C-alpha cells in the first residue's frame, strides 16, 4: 500500500458522501422522529430522541406486514426458480454442440435487451386471460427464468471441465443425477451471484407488479408503499418513511454482505458488450 495516511481524495469523497446520502438520512431521521409531522427547521433533521412508534404502528396496523410477507414469498420463489431453471437451460446450451447452441444463445442475449415497458400490456392481457391477475402466479411465473441469469451461468458452465461429468456417466449416473450431484455443486459461485442479483431486482421491482396486482392481498412492498402514499387521507410521512426504511434494509444488508458478488455479476455481464 502506497497510502499510509488517509489521502486528501478520500477525505473529499467522504465529505461528498455525506451530501450524497442526505436523502436517505432524511428517510431514517423522519422515521424515528415519532408523530406524523415533518421538520420545522434544519435543526430538527437530527433526531433529539429516537422513537420506534412509527415502526410499531406500521407493522401492527394496516396491510404493511402483509406486503412484507408477500415480497418475501414472491422473491424466494423467483430466486429458487432462477437457480434451478436458469442453470438447467445454461447447462443444456453449454453441452449442445454447433449451430443450435449459437441460435439459443442469440435468443437468450436478445431477450436481455428487450425493454420491460413493452411487456406491461401484453403480460396483463395474457394473465387476465389465464385468470391470474392479482395472484401470486402473476408475480412469480413471468420472472422465473431471467435471460441474463441463463447467460451468466452459461459462461460459467463452459469453464467446468467435462471430465467429471463423463466419469459420473461411466459410474452409471443418468443426466439428471449428473446435473444435480456433479454439475450443480460446481456452479455454486455463479449461483451466489445469480441469487443475490435476482433478489435485489425482484425485491425492488415496481413496474410489472404495479400493473399485475390490484389488492393488498398480494401487493409487494414497493407497490404497497406507493399506493399508501396516494391514499385518500393526507400522507403520514413518518409512517411512510418507516415503511420505506424497512423495505430498504434487506437490500442494503444484502449488498453489504455480498458486495463482491454483486459487483462481479454486474461487471462480468458488462464485458460482453
Amino acid at each position: 500500500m502506497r497510502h499510509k495516511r488517509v489521502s486528501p481524495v478520500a477525505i473529499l469523497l467522504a465529505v461528498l458522501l455525506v451530501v450524497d446520502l442526505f436523502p436517505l438520512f432524511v428517510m431514517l431521521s423522519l422515521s424515528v422522529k415519532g408523530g406524523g409531522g415533518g421538520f420545522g427547521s434544519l435543526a430538527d433533521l437530527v433526531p433529539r430522541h429516537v422513537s420506534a412508534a412509527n415502526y410499531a404502528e406500521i407493522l401492527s396496523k394496516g396491510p404493511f406486514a402483509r406486503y412484507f410477507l408477500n415480497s418475501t414469498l414472491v422473491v424466494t420463489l423467483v430466486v429458487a426458480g432462477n437457480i434451478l431453471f436458469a442453470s438447467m437451460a445454461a447447462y443444456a446450451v453449454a453441452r449442445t454442440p454447433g449451430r443450435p447452441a449459437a441460435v439459443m444463445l442469440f435468443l437468450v442475449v436478445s431477450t436481455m435487451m428487450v425493454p420491460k415497458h413493452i411487456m406491461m400490456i401484453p403480460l396483463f392481457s395474457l394473465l387476465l386471460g389465464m385468470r391470474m391477475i392479482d395472484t401470486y402466479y402473476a408475480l412469480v411465473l413471468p420472472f422465473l427464468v431471467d435471460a441474463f441469469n441463463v447467460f451468466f451461468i452459461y459462461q460459467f458452465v463452459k469453464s467446468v471441465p467435462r471430465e467429471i461429468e463423463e466419469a459420473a456417466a461411466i459410474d452409471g449416473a443418468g443426466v439428471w443425477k449428473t446435473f444435480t450431484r456433479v454439475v450443480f455443486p460446481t456452479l455454486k459461485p455463479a449461483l451466489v451471484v445469480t441469487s443475490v442479483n435476482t433478489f435485489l431486482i425482484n425485491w425492488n421491482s415496481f413496474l410489472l407488479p404495479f400493473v399485475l396486482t390490484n389488492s393488498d392481498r398480494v401487493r409487494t412492498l414497493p407497490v404497497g408503499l406507493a399506493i399508501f402514499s396516494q391514499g385518500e387521507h393526507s400522507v403520514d410521512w413518518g409512517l411512510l418513511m418507516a415503511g420505506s426504511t424497512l423495505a430498504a434494509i434487506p437490500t442494503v444488508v444484502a449488498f453489504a454482505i455480498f458486495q463482491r458478488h454483486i459487483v462481479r455479476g454486474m461487471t462480468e455481464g458488462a464485458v460482453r458488450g
Partner: protein
Amino acid sequence: MMTTRERLIFLLPWALSFALFSAYPILFSLGTSFTQYNPFRGGLTGWAGLDNYRQVFSDPLFWKSLKNTVLFVVGTVPPTAVLSLGLALLLDRAGRLKGLLRTGYFIPSVVSLAVISLVFKYVYAKQGPLNLLAGLFGSAGREWLLDPRYALASIMVMDIWESLGYYAIFYLAALQTVPRELYDAAKVDGAGPRDLFRSVTLPWIRPVVVFVVVVNTIRAFQVFVEVVIMTRGGPLGSTQTLVYYMYEKAFLYVKIGQASVVAFVVFVLIMLFALVQIGMLRRLRASTG
C-alpha cells in the same frame, strides 16, 4: 452425453418463459397496434388499420410526452456518464478507504426506485428539507414538484443522483484493468495528467463508456416509476412521459390499440438510439485510433 430429449427437457422452462413472456409480448404489441382490442369486453373486435397510429400521432399529449421523454434522456444520460466517470476516477485514487467509499456511493442504487421516489417526494415538498436548506441561502423555497418549470428537472436530478454510484462501479472495474505499463510509457514521453487521461485512460475504457451510455439510455427512455409516484404526469403535463402516457392509455382509458402503438414507438426509439450510439462511439474509436 445428453440425448436430444434430455436437452429439450432441460430447456423447457426457459423456452416456455421465453415464448410466453418475451416473444409473445413483442408480437402482441405490434399486432394489437393495428386492432381494436379490449381484454375486458369482447377481446379482439376487429382490425383498425392505421387508425390507432393516426389517433396517437394527432394527440398533442403524445408529442408533449415524446418531448419530455427526450428531454429526460438528454438531461440525464450525458451528465450521469460524465459524473459517474469522475466519481470512479476519484474512487480509484482514494487509497485504503476505496472499498468503504465505493459501498457508500452504491447504496442509493440498491434501494428500490419506488422508495427513492417517495423519499424525494418529501425532500422536494414545500416544507421539505431541500427548501429548509435553500432557506439558509435566503431562498423563499419552491414547490419543486408542483411547478411546471421545475418538476421534470427535479425528477431528472433525482435520477442522476440515484444512478451515479451504480455506473461508477463499471468505470471503476475498467480503470483497474488499465495496464500500468501504458501509463509509464506515456510518462516517459512527457505526458501530463491530462494527456494520460485523454490518450491512455479514455481509449482503454471506451467500451465501458458505450455500455454505460447505452444501458442508461434504454432505461431513461422508459422513465415511469418516478412519474407515477411523484407527479402522475403533472403539473400541466410537464412530467408526462411516453411510458406514463402508454400506461394511462391502457389502464385508465382502456385504449389498448393506442397504448400498443406507444409501446412499439418507444421500443423502436430505444433500438434506434442504442444502435446510433454504438455506431457513433465505434466511429470515434476508429478516428482516434
